[in-house]
């Protein structure tokens, strides 16, 4: 089955865009027949990635946009989110699950994204900004859950 681009939009750096992205992806997952909980989890992951793009990447700048790409690839739904910020390096973040960091106010978004996706990569992209790629696969018929998440840095690339 050829890839099908479901959404290709340039969004403003606002919290309304975060809501929009979550709705778009949730609708796409529902239309593909994802179970309710998987749909919720993938929407949650996309919301967190969009917050990173809008808040930490573009810093709400009216002059910067977030590109949202939603692609159906056979039984998988792939979402790419690209901002125009300074570029984010996940290896420079502290571990929010370490005991000494449990009471930190922030820093849990990536952990939740990894838990709620089947594949996740994030990292700086050219010429500038950060690209996040999230993938969720339809569970095989008859199964009730999904496989363990795979996480990592994004090995370069662009939309």
């Amino acid at each position, binding site marked *: 089955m050829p890839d099908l681009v479901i959404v290709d939009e340039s969004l403003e750096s606002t919290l309304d865009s975060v809501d929009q992205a979550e709705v778009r992806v949730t609708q796409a997952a529902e239309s593909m027949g994802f179970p309710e909980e998987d749909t919720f989890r993938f929407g949650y992951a996309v919301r967190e990635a969009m*917050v990173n793009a809008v808040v930490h990447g573009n810093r709400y700048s009216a002059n910067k946009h977030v590109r949202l790409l939603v692609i159906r690839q056979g039984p998988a739904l792939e979402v790419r989110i690209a901002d125009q910020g300074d570029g984010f390096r996940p290896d420079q973040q502290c571990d929010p*699950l370490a005991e000494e960091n*449990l*009471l*930190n*106010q*922030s820093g*849990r*978004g990536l952990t939740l994204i990894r838990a709620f996706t089947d594949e996740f990569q994030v990292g700086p992209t050219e010429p500038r900004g950060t690209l996040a790629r999230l993938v969720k696969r339809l569970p095989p018929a008859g199964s009730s859950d999904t496989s363990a998440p795979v996480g990592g840095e994004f090995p370069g690339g662009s939309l």
Partner: protein
Amino acid sequence: MSVKLNTRQIGDVTVIDAAGRITLGEGSTAFREAIKDLVAKGQKKILLNLAEISYIDSSGIGEMVSGFTSVSNAGGQLKLLNLTKRVQDLLQITKLYTVFEVFDDEAVALSSFQG
């Protein structure tokens, strides 16, 4: 719907009944202000009832942790009541089950506050 917060006083424990979404923006700000006000008023025993909370993002989780720290630093306790399955999952993934005291019975939760 953003978050809706109602408070009840039962003895010396303040129960916050929260409903809706605690997400970055209006929801997390309202939650932060509510905890801040209670601490400023000297309320040191706070029970956060999350039965009607449909969604908490990482910002909302951060506000809960921040509230926990503020109340603890003031010599008080902040505990959680009636977590939905999804909120339970979030606390498991983020290991915050090891931080918060969590109850599913209000009477038991109320009696757990000391002094």
